[in-house]
């Protein structure tokens, strides 16, 4: 049983849904700290670490500078789990596992969101292609809405993202195309996936578990095996890619 320090109550439900592992705590020392990923969440993570948190969960981290993320990576000694609702760790793992080792030939990722959310959507699209391709990407060409990325193993990925008057946190569609096709659709907090091959199409089960509970479980797992978590490093990769492409284009 581990305390969860969550003064804002963001993870109240998740704590209640993990009654054998979690309990609410009014003290950060020795607890898992929860940070709402707005404003200067980087500083909030550092502060919780300094106050004795054994791990930190960041809920829905805003876009922030790559430099700040890398600084946090270098100065963090505790697991930091990122809850990325548009790029759920459980969904990503299931999508990749469904490919059964088949490398994609080409990836396409398209997103649309209201102006305040489009940068996060762009970042998560980059994350999805990184995960489904199993490789890091570099920018080959980009403007403010379109980008061509080239993977380390040569597979290309085309990304498009536009700002629209759409409610919610965004619409994402990612496909890893090849002999095996992975199709991921994210609409707000709902992620749907399917995997198609010559044998047919398999639709993944609906993800009924909340993304908060997933993140909290990962934090508990990281306490046992810290090497499991590389969320900050991955966020840095995805953020750097957005900065080098869509965000930076003239």
């Amino acid at each position: 049983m581990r305390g969860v320090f969550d003064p804002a109550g963001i993870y109240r439900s998740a704590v209640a849904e993990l009654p054998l592992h979690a309990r609410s705590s009014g003290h950060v020392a020795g607890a898992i700290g929860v940070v709402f990923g707005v404003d200067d969440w980087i500083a909030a993570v550092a502060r919780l670490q300094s106050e004795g948190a054994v791990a930190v969960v960041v809920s829905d981290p805003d876009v922030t500078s790559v430099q700040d993320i890398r600084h946090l990576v270098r100065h963090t000694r505790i697991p930091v789990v990122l809850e990325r609702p548009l790029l759920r760790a459980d969904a990503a793992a299931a999508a990749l596992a469904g490919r059964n080792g088949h490398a994609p030939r080409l990836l396409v990722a398209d997103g649309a969101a209201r102006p305040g959310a489009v940068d996060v959507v762009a970042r998560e699209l980059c994350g999805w292609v990184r995960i489904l391709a199993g490789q890091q990407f570099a920018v080959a060409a980009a403007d403010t809405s379109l980008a061509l990325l080239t993977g380390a193993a040569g597979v290309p990925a085309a990304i498009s993202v536009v700002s629209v008057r759409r409610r919610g946190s965004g619409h994402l569609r990612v496909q890893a195309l090849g002999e095996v096709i992975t199709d991921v659709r994210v609409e707000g907090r709902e992620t749907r996936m399917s995997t198609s091959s010559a044998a047919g199409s398999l639709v993944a089960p609906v993800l009924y578990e909340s993304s908060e509970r997933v993140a909290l479980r990962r934090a508990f797992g990281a306490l046992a095996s810290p090497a499991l978590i590389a969320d900050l490093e991955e966020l840095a990769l995805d953020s750097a890619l957005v900065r080098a492409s869509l965000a930076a284009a003239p």
Partner: protein
Amino acid sequence: MPYGVGIIGAGPGVAALHLPTLARLAGEFSVVHIADRGSGRAACLAERVGARSSSGIDDLLADERVSIVVLCSPPDEHATQILAAVAAGKRAVLCEKPLATTIEDAEAVVAACRDSGTVLIVGTNHLYDAAWGRAKHYLLAGGHHVRAAAVTLALPPNARYHEVVTELPGAATSPVGGPPLHVPEVAASVVRQLITGLAVHDLPIVRDLAPDLQHVLFAQAVAPLGFVVGFRASGVPIRLATVMLPEGADAVWRIDITTDSDVIQVSFPPAFVHVGSAVVTVDAGSGTRSTYPAVSEDGYVAEWRALLDLVNGTNAVEYDEILEDARYSLALADAAASLILGSDAA
């Protein structure tokens, strides 16, 4: 009395596409002549449908029973053959994609058809698919502004679909490898051919959404055979992605249109099959998803019915639209190929 149809070419596009389609319109059209270069395939197909066969195009064009000429020949022969059909006084030409391989040739054939009153239609069956009409109505009726468009194709070998609509003797196996795409000249040529021969299925629709081609941002060949292109038209970012595969999942052929509030998806069935129209799905910003059911008539049949309306005079040939569609796809293909060559030179 059915219109007599003469088909130039005897490849899978004839055996697996037009002949099964025309069998569904036997009251309106009758295949009376099939010609190719003398491979024997035309004779084989003609015998099956009770048509005459010949080698070359002269006998077919001289056949008075032929009023509609269908071109299923190599793309670089289309322009010459259209002009020959016009000179032979044929009533109509259905030209498989592309109309021509250069803008100059496209202009010449459209002018010739317009001047002679020859009905001209290009085999862009997706344009005639009832689902596209529905999606277009949704956009227009709702006053939606297009913010982005994407066309995605992942195609297994066509033989999979040929097998369910025809019987082709000694079907060739698909090559596992592909052309040497690391060679820029090869990559550029492949991308150009794929745009003019495959993307052209959907570029008339793209042009409907974003008519003013501005610039190509990126273009790259994709192994084993495919391409990815990103460009701007009418300020709209457009992404085309195509990969042809030696095996694997069923075909993906989809257009996604993002508006200010909705994402409209038009999913086409695989090529060659007759399972009805595409399916239109609308993901509204409100969170609702609406799926419009497919209609029983597929784009191939719809395209032939459109031709019937034109030869019957109940509809008018849109020569300017045909020409602009050709200009759009050829300009895009040329720009993409130039970018591939230029990026290597840089």
